[in-house]
């Protein structure tokens, strides 16, 4: 089972991001369970969502305390909330930022975790460019697909289109693909899946 935890703030589409991952996994014929931490969901408050993916039915229902991957949609949370709590040593970290991990003050993380599995993606910038709105959630999933290989970028695209039919979805797909390519490039891998 793969466990993903997404951190962000209310209004940033954190819950939707987890749902999209679950739909992408479903598209690939896998079982997936996505749900939010049910805190006070007022705009701006820290929000967490979860997604489990497995090849068999997922029965467990608790929040994810030992994630295999983290997506951090809002870097202002980094030093406010313990976003890294429980992350396995082989865990993946994807942070939405145009700055590098060093610049974010996360240099020491590479001592705890695997540096090739940690990356910053300027998802908000990409979202502004391709969506006209600073909504990075779907965009980040493109980066997530590239970083972990857990779900394909085509599945991510299918999930986005299912949840957001029409031009909004299409623009998000374009931006997600850009993020995918960005991460691939960062890791020195070929851009096509």
């Amino acid at each position, binding site marked *: 089972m793969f466990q993903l935890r997404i951190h962000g703030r209310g209004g940033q589409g954190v819950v939707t991001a987890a749902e999209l991952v679950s739909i992408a996994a479903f598209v690939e014929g896998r079982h997936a369970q996505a749900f939010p931490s*049910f805190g006070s969901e007022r705009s701006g408050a820290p929000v967490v969502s979860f997604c489990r993916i497995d090849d068999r039915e997922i029965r467990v229902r608790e929040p994810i305390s030992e994630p295999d991957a983290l997506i951090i949609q809002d870097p202002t949370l980094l030093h406010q*909330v313990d976003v890294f709590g429980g992350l396995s040593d082989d865990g993946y970290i994807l942070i939405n930022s145009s700055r590098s991990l060093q610049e974010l003050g996360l240099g020491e993380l590479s001592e705890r975790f695997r540096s090739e599995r940690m990356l910053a993606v300027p998802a908000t910038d990409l979202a502004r460019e391709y969506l006209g709105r600073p909504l990075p959630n779907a965009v980040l999933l493109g980066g997530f697909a590239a970083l972990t290989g857990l779900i394909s970028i085509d599945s991510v695209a299918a999930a986005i289109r299912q949840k957001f039919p029409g031009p909004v979805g299409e623009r998000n797909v374009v931006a997600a693909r850009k993020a995918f390519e960005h991460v691939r490039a960062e890791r020195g891998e070929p851009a096509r899946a």
Partner: protein
Amino acid sequence: MLKQEEGSRAVAEAVALCRPEVICAYPISPQTHIVEHLSDLVRTHDLDPCEYVSVESEFAAMSVAIGASAAGARAYTATASQGLLYMAEALYNASGLGLPIVMTVANRAIGAPINIWNDHSDTMSQRDSGWVQLYAETNQEALDLHIQAYRLAEEISLPVMVCMDGFILTHAYERVDVPTQEQVDAFLPAYEPRQVLDPAEPVTIGAMVGPEAFFEVKYLAHAKQMQALDVISEVAADFAAAFRRESGGLLRPYRADGAETIVVALGSVLGTIEETIDELRDEGVSIGALGIKTFRPFPLDEVREALADAKRVIVLEKALAVGIGGIVSANVRMALSGVQLHGYTVIAGLGGRAITQQSLRRLFKDGVADKLKPLTFLDMDWELVERELERMRSGPSGPHEQNMLRDIGVVAAGSH
């Protein structure tokens, strides 16, 4: 058709497939997504003919359902927690009048203190209302139970509440198989009321009944629920045959055959329990689980049969009868009257406190070693409690919630 969608939406689709004629909705977390989606379906005429009534309270919601059902319409509503309590009077009225209303309850804690997260206090508080109570373990089961519920309700002329854990199920995205309209139509015929308000044949519904007959009328409600024990199993069997999956029924044992220790529970926590059972079984522990799917009527004989050969029973429940202890365990104990075994009650998950596999593992191991007290509060912060009790001992201390939240440091920071 297989879909990956939110539990609420799956339930709304199932309800729509049952062709309700009157839906009355009052919003309350965490049921709102269900009634919102049904509203969309009515507006687009996907659900037609159907009258969607936006009522002014839950008391009104159940009352509108009563009027609609008495006039021969298939009626539906949904609620949770405070809303369920607000309609309590109407619940008893609906069951007393034998109206086959189906209602979703998105299980949620009851205040004070106000809390929107999951536990079973709400439906447990209405266990004596005369309604049939079914508990779903997964969103698939929640979907399926609504279809079974209408069949059951209309056959025995009693209302049925389908209980699903608020947020944990309602707001979780997972894979569900949504039946087709043809499948549901074949399983669920049109509603044929036993009594109906119709100018063609006027009847008086809701007369006053004095001491000379009330006892008998009330007994009939009990008799109907006893009949329901058989009907529930039949409907579940028919469902399995028609839809090719097991859903509902009275009980679901999990690796309980020959188990020395059996854990009893209701609802979604059974999933986490089953994972923990597997883990412990791999380590050679003789342990199993018993999921109670139907809480009212309570399947006394079936529970007894399932548990009688075990050495110990751990009842894990998400409700607390303040002043005495467990509710489910008291019902289970009734089933086990005369049987010798160790019984443990564990209260867990109140107000949405997460029940983790790790905690359950520890708990079950203690249980197997008979190290548990008769009544355990899982993952209770005893320090926090002690501090507050100490405050109370030293004079007027202010509201408990305020003091304790401050201790945890939750008030200043946002919760996460």
